[in-house]
């Protein structure tokens, strides 16, 4: 365990950035977004709850898969895969860090998604315990300990000090590079800080949300519940919840005709869209109610069914904060769950 004065964070970032891109929450016109560190950017470690999650670093919104070049009547295929340069993501909250495990189960199981894999291998994750959670946070509900955020390196930021603890080989390698900037950590001080923020997390309004009734076997019990109609009534079918979600992993593969050839790319898709999983016969989910249901059934039932009971939600609270009509997973859990009726 190490530590560094908060005032010297700039040096730390510069050192990390020297050996590869450093991505961390930065100021962007009044919002906090993951962005590349440069000496000029304004780092927002006070707003770790970025609009978009850290998912983007491994699974970007759009990504070129391959190209087809056309010359007259000839078509040639261009492999656009490039080796991914090493990079570091800094300031990842515990919930976001937990989301990578959920994505890994999808992209790294056979057949392995090599585009995702190459990024995952190249990226080192430095987490930061969240000291100022929002009322929308409910990571603890999914067993995530916000005080011990995980990742390759875990960090804690007090008023004047950053504590640094490597957890993996990747973390050790990164620590090695910055070691001369660090001093040995004050375990007692860290513990005091952890207790302090634990107490704050205890006060969160959603901490007692119960997931009882949601599991891999709940399909029959939940699928035809009449409450879906009311829950989805106001849904406008946008993709906000999906695109800010750290665990949503659905994508579409599209071709873009450049005039000289075809650029095949993938882009995030949203199960809230009417053309999601559209097939020759149309969309299997014809109404917004069905599409709305799909999203939450997937998070709380279908995913756990295929992944050892793990939910595909980390309680980051983004969808709760961002939904234009304030209809979100918390309401679904409260409405359909067993223990949430006051």
């Amino acid at each position, binding site marked *: 365990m190490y530590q560094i004065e908060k005032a010297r964070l700039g040096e730390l970032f510069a050192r990390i950035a020297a050996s590869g891109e450093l991505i961390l929450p930065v100021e962007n016109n009044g919002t906090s977004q993951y962005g590349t560190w440069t000496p000029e950017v304004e780092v927002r470690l006070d707003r770790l709850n970025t609009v978009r999650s850290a998912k983007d670093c491994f699974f970007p919104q759009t990504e070129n898969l391959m190209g087809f070049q*056309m010359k*007259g*009547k000839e078509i040639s295929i261009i492999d656009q895969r490039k080796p991914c340069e090493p990079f570091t993501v800094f300031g990842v909250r515990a919930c976001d860090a937990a989301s990578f495990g959920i994505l890994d189960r999808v992209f790294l199981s056979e057949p392995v998604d090599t585009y995702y894999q190459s990024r995952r291998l190249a990226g080192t994750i430095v987490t930061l315990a969240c000291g100022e959670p929002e009322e929308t946070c409910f990571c603890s509900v999914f067993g995530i300990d916000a005080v011990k955020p995980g990742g390759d390196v875990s960090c804690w930021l007090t008023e004047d000090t950053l504590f640094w603890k490597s957890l993996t080989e990747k973390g050790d390698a990164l620590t090695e590079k910055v070691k001369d900037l660090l001093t040995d950590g004050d375990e007692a001080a860290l513990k005091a800080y952890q207790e302090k923020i634990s107490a704050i997390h205890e006060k969160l309004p959603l901490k007692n949300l119960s997931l009882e009734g949601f599991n891999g076997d709940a399909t029959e019990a939940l699928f035809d519940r009449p409450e879906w109609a009311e829950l989805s009534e106001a849904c406008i079918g946008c993709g906000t919840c999906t695109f800010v979600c750290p665990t949503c992993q659905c994508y579409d593969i599209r071709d873009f*005709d450049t*005039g*000289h050839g075809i650029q095949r790319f993938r882009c995030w898709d949203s199960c809230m869209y009417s053309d999601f999983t559209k097939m020759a016969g149309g969309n299997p989910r*014809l*109404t917004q109610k069905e599409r709305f249901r799909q999203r939450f059934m997937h998070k709380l039932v279908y995913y756990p069914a295929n992944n050892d009971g793990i939910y595909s939600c980390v309680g980051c609270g983004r969808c709760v904060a961002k939904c234009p009509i304030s209809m979100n997973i918390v309401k679904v859990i409260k409405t359909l769950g067993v223990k949430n009726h006051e």
Partner: protein
Amino acid sequence: MSSLHKIGVFVCWCGSNIAATVDVAAVAEAMRAEPNVVYATDYQYMCSEGGQSRIREAIKEYGLTGVVICSCSPRMHEATFRKAAQSAGLNPYMVEIANIREHCSWIHKDRMDATAKAIVLARTALAKLNLNQPLTAGESNVVKRALVIGGGIAGIQSALDIAEAGYEVDIVEKTPTIGGRMAQLDKTFPTLDCAACILTPKMVDAAQNEKITLYTYSEMESVSGFVGNFTAKIRKKARHVNEDLCTGCGLCQEKCPSRKAKNEFNMGLNTRTAIYIPFAQAIPNVPVIDTEQCIHFKTGKCGLCQMNCSAKAIDFEQQDEIIERQYGAIVVATGFRPISLERFDEFGYSQNPDVVTSLEFERIMNAAGPTKGQLVRPSDGKHPHCIVFVQCVGSRDTSGCGKPYCSKICCMYTAKHAMLVREKYPDVEVHVFYIDVRTPGKNFDEFYRRAVEQYDVDYIKGMVGKVSSHGDKLQVQGSDLIADKQIIIDADMVVLAAAIEPDPEVRKIATMLTASIDTNNFLTEAHPKLRPVESPTAGVFLSGVCQGPKDIPETVAQASAAAAKVIGLLAKDKLKRNPCVAHSDEMLCNGCSACEKVCPYGAISYMDKEFRVPGPKRTEIRRIAVVNEAVCQGCGACTVTCPSGAMDLKGFSTKQIMAEVDAICR
């Protein structure tokens, strides 16, 4: 879909017109390499029978599903190539033209650049063709009636010819009588026969022909519809004289006490009464009351005409009448007027009554004119001894004061006037200032030479710079370029050959008919050489000076040509419609009515239709737009107004145009 196409590309040399600047073989070769192209070739003249048969043969041999022709403008030969394709069994709308002549070989000098551009244009046509759909033209009925706007010699001749073929014709004339400018003329060149003698019988024919209806003292109110089916509204202005009752005795005119109105027919050289018949041979021979001059209309008193009319034809209460009629074809014959000379102060036209325009001089020389044919000066009625004619007053003028074009008729009528003066009054000295004498016509130059050689008219190569009054003489200062001298002539009269311009009403008419008009307000012909009597607007034909300056024989020839075109059109029972019309995808239509608001033809209406929808209620009623294909003219205004893209235009679809954009920007 596009991959199923088999496309043939034909590159025309157009002799050397294209081949001199564009490497046609290279274009064909480049196109051969394009996806979907199974055949590409070049040939000297694609529009020739040889070229067309190549297209037909290739369609059959290669089973072509579409054809790209790289040639001249589609405005020139699109129809030709469509027909050729159709005769080989291909849908005519599966033909696209790349305009590599007007838009390429004729304007670019560098062979590399021109060839490269020709290839891009060919690819663009191919990109569009890949998305073409076979289209079938619908049919519409033809109303067997023609409308002629303008009752001068052009309109009369067109109407007579159309009526002769057995079709109903209406003539709309804004003045109280038909006859037009020709009725004002004295003699006609180069034969010197009397204008009235040859015109009045035609006027009478028109009046008596039972197929012809005359709407004199009437104006066009509006025109809608399209070829074969125009609807026109005609405002028959109140004459205040009942045409059916009036016997044309002329007593009213004699009794009318208001005698101060300028006589338009005599170019304002004398006055007329408030109730008047423009001239003795007017048709109809019915007077009209000029309400601005009439004492009754001004003060409510008088009424002498009414009291004296034994036929009880005077009707002060008469109102304008709007007549609505259907027509299959429209002939525009709106004629001309001399330009205003107010910007040519140097000739002293507005200051000196003895400086007159040629049309005024025409009236002075006319036996039925204000001087009963006596050549006298308007100022003092004295016989002139020296007359100076000035040609090109306001013609060929790019300074902005006049017109940039040659008015075409002035050289000849000036020679006519000079000759007539010298013949009737050998004592009168006649000088003509000219820049050029233009006499390209049968017996024209001979006529002009007679004026010089036989009648001793003094033609001076040069221009008048100034006309000023000196006592009762007009001092004419001009140049004699051959002698390189400045000369001064003391003249008694000066006659100005003023440029002519289209009647200003033609602008209004052109807008009504959506016929295009050039910068000089002459109506544009569909093709300057091959379709000189047709307007680009289908069903609208041009007759006389409204299309460009011309003399009487040319006007009559064009009038008959326009009539022949009208007869050809009216002879058809059905017309093939343009299949490039809008259509709405009912699955995308929101029923918002935006398209209806911008449609200039009222071609879009709405209906409620039941649709299957997902969800517990299985159907819902939606309001959707429906295009009347017979009325739609294919402008595409609706397609851009429609936010959902439901409205599209056949033949110019959004995807086709975007494919063209993509191909150009590739």
